[in-house]
């Protein structure tokens, strides 16, 4: 048995297909949707708890990847390095879950870990490399 929390990013063309149901149908996996974000006409984002027999689990993940879904693991290992962060704000429009917010009063960027889904989009987007992942 294997059970993981993962982040799936769907390109627009796949957003309306029953992909997750197929994971159950073809690979006998169980899923639990933690969060879903669908941005109309853009990409979709799904965070799942996914479990099943190991071989099936790996086949399921491969099936997703072959379809063009980006699969990432969810982790709480994301931190904002306060000595590197300049509070520019580049990351705020990159973060899909509004875990990075510019305080309009202090003009500082706050990181709300509880909203972070560890998608890691902010890591390469931050010009100061202040967002770090520590697994």
């Amino acid at each position, binding site marked *: 048995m294997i059970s993981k929390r993962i982040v799936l990013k769907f390109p627009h063309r796949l957003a309306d297909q029953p992909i997750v149901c197929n994971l159950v149908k073809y690979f006998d996996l169980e899923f639990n949707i933690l969060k879903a974000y669908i941005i109309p*006409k*853009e990409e979709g984002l799904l965070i799942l708890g996914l479990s099943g027999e190991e071989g099936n689990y790996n086949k399921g993940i491969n099936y997703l990847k072959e379809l063009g879904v980006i699969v990432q693991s969810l982790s709480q290992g994301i931190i904002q390095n306060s000595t*590197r962060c*300049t*509070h*520019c*704000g*580049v*990351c*705020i*429009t*990159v973060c899909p879950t509004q875990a990075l917010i*510019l305080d*309009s009063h*202090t*003009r*500082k960027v706050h990181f709300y870990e509880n909203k972070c889904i560890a998608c890691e989009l902010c890591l*390469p*987007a931050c*010009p*100061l*490399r202040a967002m770090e992942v520590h697994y």
Partner: protein
Amino acid sequence: MTKTITEINEKISKGDVVVVTAEEIINIVEEKGVEEAAQEIDVVTTGTFGPMCSSGTYINIGHAKPRIKLGGGACYLNDVPAYCGFAAVDIYLGCTQLPDNDPRNRVYPGKFEYGGGHVIEEFVAGKDIKLTATAYGTDCYPRKKLETWINIKDVNEAVLFNPRNVYQNYNVAVNLSNKLIYTYMGALKPGLGNANYCSAGQLSPLLNDPLYITIGLGTKIFLGGGVGYVAWQGTQHNPTAKRKDNDTPCVLAGTLAVIGDLKQMKPEWLRGTSFQGYGTTLTVGVGIPIPILNEEILRYTAIKDKDIYAPIVDYSEAYPQVKPGVLGEVSYEELKSGKIVVQDKEVPTASLSSYSKAVEIAEILKDWIKQGQFLLTEPVASLPGPESGLTFKLLKERPIE
């Protein structure tokens, strides 16, 4: 009511100078009016902290024993190539330079984790830097190879010399295409997915002295956490750019070339910076004091975000192909609200330059002046202003037969 720089400097020396930041001046003028504020306030400090690609440092590493002439050879600092086409041991490192083996955009989008800007940050921080060089050897400079650590405290000179910094206003970058693009204005999402801007607006140095009345050649400034000077107008200085009634340009306009002793600067104000898919650069902190010589100058420093406009430019087609036309104009107040409207679509905004750090710079400069550590300078010559007729030209390509 007029004052001179000499009078203001006397006040600084006596410790009774009145200094406020370009943000604080806004409310003061609203409360007291221009006339009273101009009497009371002696200096307004400005600040900006953003990526500035035309930045670099020249270093005289000192003569080796036996001697080596790097000029005409090759030289690397932490594997990043430095320019050595000067006298024997003078080298220049630009912030956008990359190690030869960096994959660049071959794996798209390139990460650009380390380049000249990062070397400069580490050098200023006092870290040892690996220098490797090869030369062809001469009778007076026989050596052909050099490999050593260098440290900022040991080199003869280390000077930050940036040919173009402190842009007076900048574009707001958007993407009209249907694919994600990676630019020097950050990653731009398709279909107007986001809008990135890069100016401190009401706190930005050249927006507080839009006609370059007080800022000129030789003006003493805050540069990279230390003291520097305006050396010249920056490259692409474009004083004849379109302006609003309040004289602030509503497109890219003036720029400054700045210089200062790197040895007294601080790594927190000179940061190696990486733009995914684009390259490396240096985020530079600059602060410029504006002497309130008269009411006109004060009125300029009281400019507000809502009265400064920036052009919205498509970076998928118009910018790279140099096509005319902008998608509109927005004020910095709108940009800082977090969203703007472009072609009837609400677009979230983000800044590349840090407003909170710009405030910090203006505050530091204010403290230096109040504590009598920083006297103001009279410019030795003016920057070319709108009357100069100077404009910014594109390259006219001519075929080589």
